[in-house]
């Protein structure tokens, strides 16, 4: 078992497509929450393979994309402080803030370094004891536990110059916000795979129970996604709504309890700003009082100027599932991967980037 090729098997996929075509009667609209799913759906041409009764729309599940402009401005302001070393995952560097990006700030002399894990950020902190090293913590439940561990390690190892700018976001609260707003009517939710590996599929019970929407957790290979769609159609045709898992090799109902525990030890929930959705209660994570010394917000108390949102950019609407990239007048004309206006064109998991790279004109 190699966990990749088996799930890219054409025969298996064709069998699932046949089953979907046979079962699907009524028109349905499913949202894939996660940007990783959006990319896989485009990369493998899954939309084309599905019958016209099944409409997939992309959701807000790209952590880079949902980071508010004001928060990017904050990261840039930190980068401009004397002696500060900014460490970040690569995608964040190109996201435009109000006036600049981390990448442009680096070009003017700021010390901004790309790392592949928080362990690298800790190493940089250890090697530069005289300088504050700030890690830009962006990500969902998948990433947050690793950042929590880095804070615990910093404390254990007495690394006093390590700081985290916590821009972490939690997925279930934002789904609730989207459903409460009622802008998009959903017949099913393709629940994120890696997030659910941490939270467990139980995190989505409220969607099935309170909103009557079928939920299936999916993996990221074509057969995973097709199986997920197949199961959603199964529920939807029978007018059921429950939480199922089409990604059993990665996800359990309870999730990774060790990771949950560490996350809760270091972080507490707080209100967080989401691009396109404004402030969502209990959807962010901030460091607990006990770890305030590692919290870049507390230590530096940065107050950047009010954020300026890019004119004409529909990233907000696209993240809510209300619009698609082809609805945006900037898409492909002014906003391209080389010259991105909004974050959905920057991130490798952004809808606009996936549409641009893999989609045809119809966006299908």
């Amino acid at each position, binding site marked *: 078992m190699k966990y990749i*090729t088996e799930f890219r098997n054409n025969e298996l996929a064709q069998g699932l497509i046949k089953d979907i075509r046979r079962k699907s009667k009524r028109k349905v609209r499913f949202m894939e929450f996660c940007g990783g799913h959006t990319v896989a759906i485009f*990369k*493998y041409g899954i939309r084309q393979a599905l019958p016209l009764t099944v409409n997939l729309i992309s959701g807000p599940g790209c952590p880079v994309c949902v980071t508010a402009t004001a928060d990017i401005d904050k990261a840039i302001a930190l980068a401009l402080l004397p002696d500060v070393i900014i460490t970040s995952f690569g995608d964040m560097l*190109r996201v435009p803030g109000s006036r600049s990006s981390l990448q442009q700030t680096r070009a003017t002399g700021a010390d901004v370094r790309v790392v*592949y894990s928080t362990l690298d950020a800790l190493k940089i902190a250890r090697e530069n004891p005289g300088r504050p090293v700030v890690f830009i913590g962006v990500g969902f439940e998948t990433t947050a536990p690793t950042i929590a561990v880095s804070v615990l390690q910093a404390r254990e190892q007495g690394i006093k110059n390590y700081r985290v700018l916590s821009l972490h976001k939690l997925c279930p609260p934002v789904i609730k916000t989207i459903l409460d707003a009622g802008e998009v009517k959903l017949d099913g939710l393709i629940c994120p795979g890696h997030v659910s590996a941490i939270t467990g599929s139980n995190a989505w019970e409220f969607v099935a129970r309170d909103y009557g929407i079928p939920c299936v957790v999916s993996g990221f290979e074509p057969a995973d996604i097709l199986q997920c769609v197949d199961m959603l159609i199964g529920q939807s045709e029978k007018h059921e709504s429950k939480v199922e898992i089409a990604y059993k090799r990665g996800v359990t109902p309870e999730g990774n309890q060790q990771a949950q525990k560490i996350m809760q030890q270091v972080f507490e929930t707080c209100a967080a700003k989401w691009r396109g959705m404004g402030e969502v209660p209990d959807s962010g994570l901030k460091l607990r009082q006990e770890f305030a010394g590692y919290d870049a917000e507390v230590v530096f108390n940065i107050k950047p100027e009010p954020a300026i949102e890019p004119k004409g950019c529909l990233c907000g609407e696209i993240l809510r599932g209300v619009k698609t990239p082809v609805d945006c007048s900037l898409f492909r004309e002014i906003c391209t*991967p*080389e010259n991105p206006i909004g974050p959905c064109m920057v991130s*490798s998991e952004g809808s606009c980037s996936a549409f641009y790279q893999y*989609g045809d004109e119809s966006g299908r």
Partner: protein
Amino acid sequence: MEDKILLAHGSGGKLARDLITKNFVSALDNPLLAQMDDSAVFDVKHRLAFTTDSYVVNPIFFPGGDIGKLAVCGTVNDLATSGARPLYLSLALIIEEGLPLNDLKQVIDSIKITSDEAGVKIVTGDTKVVNRGSADKLFINTSGIGIIPEGINISGSNAKPGDKIILSGTIGDHGIAVLSKREGIAFSTNLESDCAPLAGLVADMLKASRNIHSLRDPTRGGLATTLNEFAEQSKVGIRIEETKIPVRDEVMGACEMLGFDPLYVANEGKLVAIVAREDAEKILKAMRKHRYGKDAVIIGEVIADHPGRVVMKTVLGSSRIVDMLVGDLLPRIC
């Protein structure tokens, strides 16, 4: 103490002369270089191909090769994919002060082995040493001259609808092998770079048929970028099949982990050929007999539809656009 390169090694004085004669001229041994004049002087009576490339790979030693082997292969392959038989290379080194002399010797040895295999001679060179921090260990530039036999016309703009597209083997091996040793990402794998000189393979292909329209080695930007270049230059459409493209399990696994697509990962010992449909099987057969083409496959064809665009039939039988690489390959964050 271990011998290291000093600034004085690049000064043009005695130390420099010793370094060059003892380590370079004797190792790379050939009469044109041994003349030690300001230029290599030689006669050529053919159409010429002339190319240059600089090599800054990090780390300088990686599984399956090093910066020296790469510096020969890269330039030889640029000549070979123009249909030229590589003749002579220049070799310019920019060395960071403090580089262990043994590292340099090892690089020169592999330049010697690779250039012998490729049938090219290093006929002129230059050495500079810069202050610590002004370069990263070792940078190399090589330029190359090759002769193009009568009747050969290979160009990225020669692809025609109906032509077949042949790929010489697995993709992404070089990029992933180098990344696996890079600080901050290091992961363990048995994978080796595919770095290899392709002049022999190209010569065998041309022996099988002169009906080779376009040839290119898909280095930075990978297979996807090369195919897009062909589509754009020749104003044709390109259709490939995902299931036909060979990718090693190690490469696929690493790509999954890092969020890369093998179509965009660099190769250093592969080529893509666009050939006349009627000669495709003949050329493929010749390629498979060569050690650097044994996994060669036909991956698709040139079409008149959607000029300038590459479309791939996915494992599901759907089709999607394959665009050029944009920006750097960045790791995923969730």
